């Protein structure tokens, strides 16, 4: 089930979201529960291909809990209600911690290392190691507590340290953002007047937040295209 959980988003689509992926994870557990009852197995698989969504790394929590419910002989209607109840919180918890905090912080760590003079592969490796440390832990931990707690998983999720971990990641991220911005502003070959321009750009970035990114990307493209045109003429 753990290995299958890595492919949970493989058939992500706009109708059942990760429903088919969830059923794919559950196959070993359902085969075990419905051993010698192929019709029961097919019915169970059909039920679990219905709409489901959660953060992909926390889908293992739901899969573990559903496997436990199926093993306990819980009525299908209750399992369906359980799935509907947990999918929102599993999505919110994971999105906030992983996509909003941990991933940007991990990227900034890699970027900071490269800007500080490390080889590009050291930065890439640092990103992969730090990001996947949490990712892999979440999958293993999620499946374990899902299988252990079953219907009581909601109570367990209330006590998880994700908000605290998110706060710590945000603190580290803010520190690294400042570090990387200063290194990029004052890096190799820059002149003092450029530092002032870069400081103004940093203030603009802080003031506008993510809204500045399309403009920054457009400026990069414009600079490169203009440079190439000028280089050819």
């Amino acid at each position, binding site marked *: 089930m753990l290995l299958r959980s890595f*492919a949970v988003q493989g058939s992500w689509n706009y109708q059942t979201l990760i429903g088919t992926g969830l059923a794919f994870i559950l196959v070993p557990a359902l085969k075990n529960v419905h051993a010698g009852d192929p019709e029961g197995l097919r019915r169970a698989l059909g039920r679990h291909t219905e709409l489901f969504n959660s953060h992909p790394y926390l889908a293992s929590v739901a899969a573990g809990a559903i496997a436990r419910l199926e093993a306990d002989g819980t009525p299908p209607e209750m399992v369906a209600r359980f799935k509907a109840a947990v999918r929102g919180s599993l999505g919110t918890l994971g999105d906030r911690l992983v996509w909003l905090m941990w991933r940007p912080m991990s990227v900034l760590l890699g970027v900071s290392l490269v800007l500080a003079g490390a080889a590009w592969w050291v930065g890439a490796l640092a990103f992969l190691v730090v990001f996947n440390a949490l990712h892999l832990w979440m999958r293993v931990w999620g499946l374990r507590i899902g299988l252990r707690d079953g219907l009581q998983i909601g109570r367990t999720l209330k006590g998880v340290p994700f908000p605290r971990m998110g706060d710590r990641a945000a603190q580290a991220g803010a520190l690294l953002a400042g570090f990387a*911005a200063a290194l990029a502003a004052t890096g190799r070959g820059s002149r003092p007047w450029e530092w002032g321009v870069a400081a103004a750009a940093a203030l603009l970035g802080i003031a506008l937040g993510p809204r*500045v990114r399309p403009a920054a990307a457009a400026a990069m493209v414009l600079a*490169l295209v*203009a440079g190439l045109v000028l280089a050819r003429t």
Partner: protein
Amino acid sequence: MTVLVALALEWVGGRSVEGMRKLNVRFSGAPAQGLTPAALAGRHLAPVAIDFARGAGLTLAAVLLLGWLLRAIDFSGFPSVAVGTLLRVSVVAGLASALRLFGRAHYPLFIAGAAAGVVVAWLA
């Protein structure tokens, strides 16, 4: 040039993922009753294989395009100071904008990080 190709790859990659998700509706968009485990694996793994081919194809195309552009374009007259400054400003603005993501309450840490960055740049 690498940044330019990377930005283009990001844009094309994003659009192709959206297309892939629409295509997946055909494979596994409707809940299916009466599926055997093997049929379910087929419904799930076929999109995985197509997605793998999509990602690998796009990455290969980007690498080949970048290699060709680097060979084909003469950079000798490239106005590196102006372009470098604009690039630097864009990168700094993008990096600083991350503070809003982490919360403005953490600005003392951002300032501390910036001070450390200046010291490291000065020492280097």
